[in-house]
């Protein structure tokens, strides 16, 4: 193998790096080869002593992680488009119009979005800057919404995050469901859908805000410090959730349910629906404020200075049934 061939292969392996970096790497290896030759070695000898271009590329790529902020890149792969981060990311923002969002995790790797834009329909603005990974998607003009569209796979966006991603995650969509599972280290989660169900499972986040205007919210085994889940018209349910500082479940028209929840400050409110659940804790620790106009209420209101925890349960039309389990 000759020098040119070696360098060409190396460049090919690292083709996704920004041109400037690629040039520097090529330059560096070219000089190493020249310097070696000037020491009296033959080109073949030097190249044989160097690692293969594939090995070099792999190592440089691994070393690079988190060092440099690159400009965004995207690559086509079969029938999907891939948008990938190449530096350390602290904020991931994904905003879409009429798309379903699925968040999946991988053990290690960059932040990646898989989405196949349709020509003439989808407008994608993708940027990576100062640790912020932002993917904005819009549909051109006034889009006539065909509900059948949701059966098509190209209305789905997949966000892939490393399992231990520890930054902020902002997800927003209109008319699509959002599903996320397995994120165990989020600092902040801001999840919002206008007309779609939001489901989160086995996640952990310091602060979590989940908002759905016209659909349900289902949280299962989600933990953290603070939770605010609010739906306009739909059920809000939290199962096996623990948010010691604050756990707030709220809707206007729908039931509110908290099964096996842990928190020092619990708020469960709706206008039209049942408020029910099981709180893991000692009822004697809680100051309780509960009201319903049209329904049974199993709680007794208490307000004593010695009690440090609070439970607020409110509905206008529905019963309240909240148990404590120690």
């Amino acid at each position: 193998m000759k020098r040119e061939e070696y360098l060409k292969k190396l460049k090919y392996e690292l083709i996704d790096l920004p041109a400037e970096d690629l040039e520097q790497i090529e330059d560096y290896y070219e000089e190493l080869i020249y310097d070696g030759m000037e020491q009296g070695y033959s080109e073949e000898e030097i190249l044989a002593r160097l690692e293969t271009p594939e090995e070099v590329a792999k190592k440089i790529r691994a070393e690079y992680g988190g060092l440099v902020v690159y400009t965004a890149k995207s690559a086509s792969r079969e029938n999907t488009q891939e948008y990938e981060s190449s530096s350390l990311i602290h904020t991931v923002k994904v905003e879409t119009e009429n798309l379903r969002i699925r968040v999946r995790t991988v053990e290690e790797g960059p932040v990646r979005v898989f989405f196949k834009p349709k020509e003439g329909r989808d407008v994608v603005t993708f940027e990576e800057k100062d640790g912020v990974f932002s993917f904005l998607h819009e549909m051109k003009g006034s889009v006539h919404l065909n509900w059948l569209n949701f059966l098509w796979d190209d209305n789905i966006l997949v966000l892939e995050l490393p399992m231990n991603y520890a930054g902020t995650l902002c997800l927003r969509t209109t008319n699509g469901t959002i599903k996320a599972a397995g994120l165990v280290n989020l600092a902040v989660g801001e999840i919002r859908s206008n007309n779609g169900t939001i489901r989160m499972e086995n996640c952990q986040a310091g602060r979590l805000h989940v908002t759905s205007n016209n659909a349900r919210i289902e949280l299962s085994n989600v933990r953290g410090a603070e939770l605010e889940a609010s739906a306009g018209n739909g059920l809000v349910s939290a199962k096996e959730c623990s948010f010691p500082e604050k756990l707030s479940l709220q809707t206007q028209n729908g039931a509110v349910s908290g099964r096996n929840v842990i928190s020092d400050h619990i708020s469960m409110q709706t206008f039209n629906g049942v408020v029910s659940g099981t709180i893991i804790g000692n009822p004697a620790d809680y100051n309780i404020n509960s009201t319903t106009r049209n329904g049974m209420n199993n709680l007794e209101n208490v307000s004593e200075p010695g009690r440090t925890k609070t439970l607020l349960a409110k509905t206008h039309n529905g019963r309240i049934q909240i148990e404590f389990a120690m």
Partner: protein
Amino acid sequence: MDVQRKKGILEVCVLAVLKKGPSYGYLIIRELERCVDISESTLYPILKRLEQGGSLETYRMEYNGRMRKYYRLTQGGQRKIDAFLDEWDELRTMYQFVAEQNAREPEPEAGVVESTEIFANRDRLEGEEE
């Protein structure tokens, strides 16, 4: 050795090589090989990181009809070397401590003796009350 720590130490080794004067890639590797097994692909990111962090700077000078890239130590780089050596003093003391402790013969397990003593004491006290 822990990867992160090794990386940090390698960085200082590179800076140390530049202490006697500016040098270039090929020569830096040959010098480092005297103390550590290092490959070209390991050195590259280190140089880049050091340059970005202001510990070294680069310049080009004509050599054999081409412009060779040289690396030069900066004041920031010197501070990094100093910080490393300071830290090392502390580490060495801790290392010696660990080595000394590790070389000691184990003593009879103190906790067990104590607790039986407590029981013996309690028995005695309770006995006295009767």
